[in-house]
């Protein structure tokens, strides 16, 4: 037994295999079936939702004079809009009795707890804050976050991970895909509609030419697109209740995730400035200008 336990510690979590018959995650060891506790196949899913604290979408972002980032001090921050949609979807699943519990996770410095509290106020049950100091956070990428989320998904025995499609600060659109890859789970990205069926999930996705329907098994990782739902506002009573909901703090090191930077920021600069042109008086003047510009 001790050797089995040792093996489960020595094997990094992403090398764990699905133990076929029981459809559970175990270290790859011939006698590992002995270490499985009897986990019943629940009909209700446990949902992990990722939420990121970003500069508010309405703020006019300014590049720092040192050209190594944007001004974040004293600037309004809020939950990434796509993450609000992700939280809303998870909470809706709970209300439809498709999910048993919603866990909100945020990776970042201390202030990230603000968005976890918002998620709790929207209806999440508990929160996990993965604390990353500010300097380290500047170079943190989806590759690191995806490993953190994957580890938490396994630790928390989540059946579904829902993330926002992209963060409006880095516009990366990578985390859901990468988290799915680390876990070897299917990915349903840019979700417009998600239905839980006996076989798993039926998902309508927004693609370049219109919509696409796919079916995936569970567990899965989803990324929420704009029209998946309309997020609710957190009401004041719920905001007060959220203060009492549990919020666990961990570090990437606790989760065995290496946050060594993979990139070096060379510069952050202003985009080319577009000058306003002329306002014309009427349609005739507009036609004249279009002709002059060679457009007609």
């Amino acid at each position, binding site marked *: 037994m001790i050797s089995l336990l040792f093996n489960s510690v020595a094997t990094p979590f992403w090398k764990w295999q699905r133990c076929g018959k029981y459809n559970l995650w175990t270290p790859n060891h011939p006698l590992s079936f002995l270490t499985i506790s009897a986990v019943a196949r629940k009909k209700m899913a446990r949902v992990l939702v990722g939420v990121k604290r970003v500069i508010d979408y309405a703020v006019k972002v300014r590049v720092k004079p040192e050209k190594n980032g944007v001004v974040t001090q004293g600037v309004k921050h809020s939950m990434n809009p796509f993450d609000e949609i992700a939280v809303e979807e998870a909470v809706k699943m709970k209300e439809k009795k498709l999910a048993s519990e919603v866990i909100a996770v945020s990776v970042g410095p201390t202030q990230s707890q603000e968005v976890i509290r918002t998620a709790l106020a929207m209806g999440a049950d508990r929160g996990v804050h993965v604390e990353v100091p500010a300097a380290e956070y500047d170079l943190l990428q989806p590759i690191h976050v995806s490993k953190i989320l994957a580890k938490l998904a396994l630790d928390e025995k989540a059946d579904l991970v829902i993330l926002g499609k992209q963060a409006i600060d880095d516009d990366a659109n990578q985390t859901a895909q990468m988290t799915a890859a680390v876990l070897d789970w299917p990915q349903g990205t840019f979700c417009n509609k998600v239905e839980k069926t006996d076989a798993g999930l*039926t998902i309508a996705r927004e693609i370049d*030419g219109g919509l696409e329907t*796919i079916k995936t*098994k569970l567990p899965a990782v989803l990324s929420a697109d704009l*029209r998946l739902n309309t997020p609710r506002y957190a009401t004041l009573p719920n905001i007060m209740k959220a203060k009492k909901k549990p919020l666990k703090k961990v570090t990437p090191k606790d989760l065995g995730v290496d946050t060594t930077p993979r990139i070096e*920021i060379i510069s952050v600069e202003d985009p080319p400035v577009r000058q306003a042109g002329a306002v014309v008086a009427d349609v005739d003047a507009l036609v004249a*200008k279009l002709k002059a510009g060679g457009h007609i």
Partner: protein
Amino acid sequence: MFANNTRNLVRSSFLQRCKSTLVVAEHNNETLNPLTLNTITAAKKIGGDVTVLVAGTKCGPASEAVAKVEGVTKVLVAENAAFKGFTPESLTPLVLAAQSQFKFTHILAGASAFGKNVLPRIAAKLDVSPISEIIDVKSEDTFVRTIYAGNAILTLKSKDPVKVITVRGTNFPPAATSGGNGAVEQAPAGDYASSLSEFVSQELTKSDRPELTGAKVIISGGRGLKSGDNFKLLYDLADKFGAAVGASRAAVDAGYVPNDLQIGQTGKIVAPELYVAVGISGAIQHLAGMKDSKTIVAINKDPEAPIFQVADIGLVADLFKAVPELTGKL
């Protein structure tokens, strides 16, 4: 984990000399998506040879077209029922097998819904940090991309041994479709079928109009149109130009038009010769999708609308009068 990184860094200095790029082609089994041509240009800018992977259920037409593209050294063809729907779960092991055989230094795809869906999964499996939607290649390890809805330009250097990158098509000219003589060979064989995910169907908007991301002229409508029926005004105007029709998020959210028309930070990024914004206020997130247009025309009844700050030609007028008048005078 630390040992892995050291190994990677040693390997990366080794591979600096032998640049070799894989472009994952986007196609629909009949025709090649033009974005692949822009992506090939970005691949050529990195230097080193360019291999293009064509995977699908029926690859003949697409692989023949790719082999003729100027600058393509090799075409890898993978024809398999497993690739129905081009799912990331089936394509990822294929790309990993190709990577294992050929040891590419760079893996590229266009920053379309397809590229953005598949490439990060590949990157995670290779344990590298992907770089989304580059707008320029400075060197084999230094790339430029936009952040904060295009309000800041980031230049970054990747420390990973394999760079996995999606490419914004509007920033790279398309590679010539003739003059190339790429060698066609079979991609590594394997059982790529994935039971995790299954493609069911697609509902694509049928249109005779040019495709948005490649159109030379775009007529775009926003909340000011007030209904889907009113978009007919824009379709009539577009006919005069042979233009594509786009929309702001507000118009799509309100149900006036389907989602594939959306232009903006989280929709399509376009850079046509002429962009006519009708009834669009010009929110930051919409500008992110069209501010690289050569000429911007704005028609809006609100003189304070932010769109006038980026428009080359502005007309403050009621669109329901101005647009039909404009259509009539062209």
